[in-house]
């Protein structure tokens, strides 16, 4: 029977994996995917905390707060993905590459 710790470890693992990808990968599409991974790691953590630690007293909303957060994050992530991919396509049209290390107009 898996407990809270297992879910938290899974969430943290996903987040770290995503962070590494976002920081280290050079392909912009993979960077976006890595960011999705980070968000989903968070989602697991939120839902796990909600399942195991939701208080049984107080206002009713607090019993669902973690799940509502997760739903918001999914919605925001969808929007972010749409915007991010649009930017990637626009950059590709201009520069014919999606390698983030080649997009360095702001270098000093």
């Amino acid at each position, binding site marked *: 029977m898996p407990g809270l710790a297992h879910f938290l470890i899974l969430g943290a693992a996903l987040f770290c994996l995503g962070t590494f990808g976002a920081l280290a990968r050079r392909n912009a599409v993979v960077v976006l995917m890595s960011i999705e991974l980070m968000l989903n790691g968070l989602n697991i953590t939120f839902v796990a905390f909600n399942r195991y630690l939701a208080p049984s007293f107080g206002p009713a909303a607090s019993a669902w707060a973690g799940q509502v957060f997760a739903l918001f994050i999914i919605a925001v992530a969808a929007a972010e993905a749409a915007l991010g991919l649009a930017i990637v396509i626009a950059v590709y049209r201009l520069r014919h590459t999606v390698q983030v290390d080649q997009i360095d107009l*702001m270098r000093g």
Partner: protein
Amino acid sequence: MELFALALVILLAPLAAFVLSALLARRAWQLAGGLTITGVAVAFLASLAVFAQVYGHEARLDVTVPWLTIAPLAGRALEIGLRIDPLTAVMLLSVSGVSLLVQIYSWGYLHEVEFDEHGHPHVHRDPGFSRYYTWMALFTTSMLGLVLASSLLLLFVCWELVGLCSYLLIGYWYERPAAALAAKKAFLTTRLGDLGFLIGLAYLWWQTGTFTFSQLEALVANHAIPPLVATVGALLLFSGAVGKSAQWPLHVWLPDAMEGPTPVSALIHAATMVAAGVYLVARAFFLFQHSPEAMLVVALIGGFTAIFAATMGLVNNDIKRVMAYSTCSQLGYMMLALGAGGLAAGTFHLFTHSWFKALLFLTAGSVIHATGTQDMREMGGLRAKLPGTCWAMTLAGLALAGIPPLAGFWSKDGILGAVFDSPTVVAAKPLLLAFALVTVFLTAFYMGRVLFLTFGGQWRGDPQRWPHVHEAPAVMLWPMLVLIVPTVLAGFWNMPAQFAYGHFVEHSLLYAHTLAEQFHPELAIFSIALAVAGLVVAWAMYGARVISAAAVTRAFGPLYGWALNRWGFDHLYNWLVGTVWVGLARGIAAFDLGVIDGIVNGVARATVALGQAFRPLQTGQVQTYAWVVFGGLIVVAVAIMLGSRI
């Protein structure tokens, strides 16, 4: 005619001549000359009318209008206006009279006669003829305006205008480097004095709130001006007079100003403009009288200039420069008289001097015209060829030397008497009297030297030239002959017993005293003896040649060289300005370029270097920034965890 209308005619007639000849007569030379002579003649006739009314009917004019109103200063107005009183009337007469004669004379002077190999004369007209008459008309306008001004402000405006005309006319032959340099020297040197004058104007206005002579006079009469204010104001005004009247230590420009045409020297640098400084002191005499210190300074500078300039006149070989030093010296006499309290004596000498000194310059111009040189060593024996010029210059020279009954004797003895009786310079009186008396001897000597070197003896110049040396044409000779009249007669106006001039002029403004009746027979006899002694020594050295001039020169040794070198003042000023002042300016420029600009440029360079140093931080790679953010997050998280542990 009404006095005000006459004053306007005096101002506007030469002004109209100036404007018309400037606009219309650039090539029509007869028109320019004719317009100017006509304009000045009208001004002269109007001046005569003014003089008749002021002398005969004691008419006065004092109109003042606000020119600019200054709202922030409680609506105080800068005032200009016209004033006619006895002093003005006398000055108008000599300015317009000398100007008229000089304008007529110039017509001949600007036509040079040259002889070809067959001895045929060819007349060359100076190419700047129209320009000359245009500036002369402007000068006459400004000088008459200066005399007529009822406020210090208008006087200053005209003062600067005559300075400008002096500059333009000294540099009339501007293609000659010496003339261009002399014009600049005159302009800059007088400007130095004018700076003090301008500060004095501002100071007096600040202290009294008025520029008008009549109002200033009323303030002095009511003792509303503290003595310190009177002293500072009077000395600042006097600094302008020192520059304009070529008094020591600003005397250096006048000898060089002789680079201009000789009629210009006669009108501007002998009879009128240089006298403006004396006129200014006489005009503001009530202010000077309020301050014994200022009077003493005026007397000392005047007395010193009188003897100092005369010593330089003794040794110079250039006929015009001797006259120029003589002018300096005589202006010093006038300042001395004013400083001693002798308004009547000082202004009377100004009046008589303007006639005989103008005559001296015109005759010198005639000599130069005939011989083609200004060096007296290359003249001689001209009495045979230039009899009219010779007589005129002899009379003018004797008047300058102070031989009775010529004009200079009466006015100069008035000055000696004024110094003798002076109530203002008590302590310095023996010194000043000695200066004045020695100057009498020196003046007679250098005038005698000029006369004997020029007209006596044998021709020492180019023998080829001698047959062509000729008397001046009628247009030049007549003005000289006319000038003989005041040279001989003007002095009788202030004869002892009547002192008509003194009593006439003392009613110009309110004065503590004018020393209107100064004549001491014993002093006069002594000064005549000195003058005759000077002439006799000059005759012995340069006429009969019983005393060797070279031996005398050797006897005086280095003094002769110093005097010939203008006592080193020109070198001193050259050194002061060219070396000390320019060196100081170079040092300041180096400080500005090195230190001030160095700081400014250093700040800019340091900023750029700092930016260059930090530039690699901006990689433009979004992931680098993300690494930094993430690293920072970890640092913050670790810090919080460590913090919560402790």
